[in-house]
């Protein structure tokens, strides 16, 4: 049985407009639509709020804030392991530069180093481009004092003979303000003050001139011997090899002035130095070694032993790298580009807004709101990716988004034009809204899917600028679909439930209902009869 209406209900035309409350609206349109609308608005508001609260900011790429980018290629085929090692060594070097978001990644044939916003471009280039030398240096003393006036002040734990030249002031190691020798002063035949790699206690090693280089090393491997991780060192034969090493070892073993005993130790120490950092500084416990039977023990963790042996094995970098592509963008040029992109984007958006509101009136405003929703979500995602994953926004990315604005607006245009068609075909505005959306949306999905396929393929198959473009184009396209389905569609439907919509189609940029007068004129009389 159908429910029976017990009281007379005013027809639509009689019902006063102002009495239509939100509850009426809610019952007039499907609940789900309303939920979509609320959901997407809340989501975008939440997204923008969280972006502000978390302090997420989009990370600007090299071309937008200036900086240095170097693409290095290995001169000979390299394994993934070697390239990974190279990446971590370069990262160590770069960390000293104080770059906010260095991007150092492995490519198929080499390494890509991107240092946005770097101040000292000269130094960045030299650090990344050159391959440093592994050096053996005798340890003259160890201290934690920040800046010793001279070694003789007593803060160095034992300075002898040749090392004492430093103490007597005959030779003064070049020390920077931080108490360490700067990389450009780190010369093989000089006394230097260097820190221990990975050391946070601030130990400073006063080191003598280099006595042997990494060329002497044939191989180095982590070994598990006597219940602890050690590094087994294998040297070449000859003077640049085990013979040279043994000469130094003998002096250190007996505590010769060139490699003195430090306080509390029975032997001298020999530091292995790489990239201005002491990798390890073992005491020499034997006067002479077999070329393939040298063990460095020091209570290593496995990872430390791995790290040390990798450093020793490969010297500075496991592969020789050649800069293949260098880009330096000054900060001012970067800012100019950013400003140009932003200003151009804003003015463009303003003009688009004017055009679309002039053409579609209130529907135009809906289109703008929809654009705003997808824009807010896009901003939140870019900011999140920038802060959390270090994904930079580049000029190409901005271009991708500007292009996507056109595509997003088009989704609205496709729908609105379809709406117009249906109204002209003699439907009421209200029924057109319900009918046109699924058809228009299927068109939008078809076209957007083609864009997405393109973006996906570009993302997967290309490199560099094209990739950034593809990513942001793809993101914006997906968000366009989301905003269209969850915001624009329900919003127009919500508006369509108002009397306002039926009474003033021209305010929505629609033709008056029943634009086919011949037919419409005849039909009602027949139906009514």
């Amino acid at each position, binding site marked *: 049985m159908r429910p029976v209406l017990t009281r007379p209900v005013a027809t639509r035309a009689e019902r006063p407009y102002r009495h239509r409350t939100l509850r009426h609206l809610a019952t007039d349109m499907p609940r789900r639509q309303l939920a979509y609308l609320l959901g997407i608005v809340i989501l975008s508001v939440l997204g923008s709020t969280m972006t502000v609260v978390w302090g997420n900011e989009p990370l600007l790429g090299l071309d937008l804030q200036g900086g240095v980018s170097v693409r290095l290629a290995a001169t000979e085929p390299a394994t993934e392991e070697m390239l990974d090692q190279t990446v971590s060594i370069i990262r160590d070097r770069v960390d000293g530069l104080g770059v906010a978001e260095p991007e150092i990644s492995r490519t198929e044939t080499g390494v890509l180093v991107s240092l946005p916003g770097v101040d000292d471009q000269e130094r960045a280039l030299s650090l990344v481009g050159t391959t440093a030398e592994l050096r053996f240096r005798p340890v003259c003393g160890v201290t934690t004092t920040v800046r010793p006036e001279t070694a003789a002040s007593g803060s160095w734990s034992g300075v002898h003979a040749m090392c004492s030249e430093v103490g007597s002031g005959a030779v003064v190691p070049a020390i920077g303000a931080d108490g360490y020798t700067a990389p450009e002063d780190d010369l093989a035949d000089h006394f230097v003050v260097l820190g221990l790699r990975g050391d946070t206690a601030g130990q400073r090693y006063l080191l003598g001139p280099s006595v042997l280089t990494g060329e002497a090393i044939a191989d180095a491997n982590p070994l598990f011997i006597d219940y602890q991780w050690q590094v087994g060192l294998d040297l070449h034969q000859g003077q640049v090899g085990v013979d040279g090493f043994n000469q130094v070892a003998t002096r250190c073993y007996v505590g010769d002035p060139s490699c003195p005993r430090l306080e509390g130790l029975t032997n001298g120490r020999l530091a292995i130095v790489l990239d201005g950092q002491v990798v390890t500084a073992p005491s020499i416990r034997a006067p002479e070694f077999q070329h393939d039977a040298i063990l460095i023990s020091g209570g290593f963790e496995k990872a430390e032993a791995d790290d040390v042996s990798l450093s020793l094995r490969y010297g500075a970098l496991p592969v020789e790298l050649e800069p293949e592509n260098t880009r330096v963008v000054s900060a001012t040029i970067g800012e100019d580009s950013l400003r140009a992109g932003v200003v151009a984007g804003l003015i463009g958006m303003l003009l688009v807004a004017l055009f679309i509101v002039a053409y579609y009136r209130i529907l135009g405003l809906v289109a703008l709101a929809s654009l705003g929703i997808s824009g807010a979500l896009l901003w939140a995602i870019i900011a999140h990716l920038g802060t959390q994953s270090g994904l930079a926004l580049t000029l190409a990315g901005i271009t991708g988004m500007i292009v996507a604005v056109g595509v997003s607006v088009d989704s609205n245009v496709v729908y609105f034009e379809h709406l117009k068609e249906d109204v002209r075909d003699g439907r009421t505005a209200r029924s057109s809204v319900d009918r046109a959306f699924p058809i228009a949306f299927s068109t939008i999905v078809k076209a957007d899917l083609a864009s997405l396929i393109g973006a996906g393929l570009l993302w997967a198959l290309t490199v560099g600028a094209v990739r950034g473009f593809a990513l942001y184009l793809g993101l914006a396209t997906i968000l366009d679909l989301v905003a269209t389905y969850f915001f624009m569609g329900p919003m127009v439907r919500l508006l369509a439930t108002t009397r306002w919509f039926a009474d003033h189609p021209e305010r929505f940029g629609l033709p008056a209902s029943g634009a086919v007068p011949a*037919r419409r004129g005849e039909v009602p009389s027949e139906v009514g009869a």
Partner: protein
Amino acid sequence: MKTLRALYRGESPVDFPLLWRPAVTVSVVAVVLGLLSFVVLGLNLGLDFEGGTSYEVRAPDASVADARELMADLGAPEARIQLVDDDLVLVRSDVQDPARALEIRDGLVTGLGPVVAFEQVGPTWGDEVTDKAVKALVVFFIVVAMYIAVRLEWKMAVGALVAVAHDIVLSVGVYSVFRFEITPATVVAFLTIMGYSLYDTIVVYDKVREIVGRLGATERYTYSELMNLALNRVAMRSINTSVTSAIPVLSMLVVGSVILGAATLREFAVALLVGIAVGSYSSLFLASSLVSVLKEREERWSQIAVKVRNRTADDADGSKKGTRTIERSDAVGADTRAAPRRAPGGGPAKRRPTMTAPTGGGVPPRPRKKKR
């Protein structure tokens, strides 16, 4: 303007099929010219593809002659020098050795002014980029063709790919004729144009499919006539979308390059503008005409065409040239959506009885619902 207003009102003022022949002629000539220029003049390949070094030096007082002299002193007399925006000197040389490149850079800093941007590219890098882009392009074409063939139909896939290829050839042709430099950003622009063109074509095709699906079963109109109706109805959308897509690009061109002097944006924006215009044009004129020609060859549509021709010949004034336009009232009346669908592809079946009196706007009365 009159045509635009008529389009806005939803009429069918443009006879697209009549325009197809001249449009195709123009396009073929343009494509041939583009290819010719590509073969004869070639492309002005940028640094990233050829290898070499470029410097942007901020030197308000320097002249091109000064810079050339300095570069000769630095051992790179072949360098190309260009003044940009009065205070910026653009120096390009084919020095590929990184160490030499840095030497010259230092020389420029001392001799001319601060180097604000510097780029050095080895010889292999460009090949890698080109290789990848070409590979991506080929895969892209194959996948998209498959996609359109599945979602729409294979004849439309052919039309879409021809339109996209046309747009790309013309855009590359513009770069070749005007000697614009091809940079990675240009490649991005070309890809954008491709994507845009494809998107536009699919929207047009979808409209065509919708109209053909609605009115095709009446067998009163040829495919071209239906196509004409669809194109007229989608034309306003294409124009609006082109305008809204072009506005941000135009603003990028004017604001970005002219006012703020970001030189790299200029050629990029020009390419995009050409691409947007050509992309809309090709979907309305090329992609549609090709599909029309292919479809008219189908048995079903050729039979309909013969029938329609016979009928219109009886209506006298057969001398009238051009495509019969489908009036809106006919389009509404002939809406066959409510009628049960016939299996597509079969030859012309028996004519459905048509209603002589337009009762109920051509929609058969809805059967009464059964009471529950």
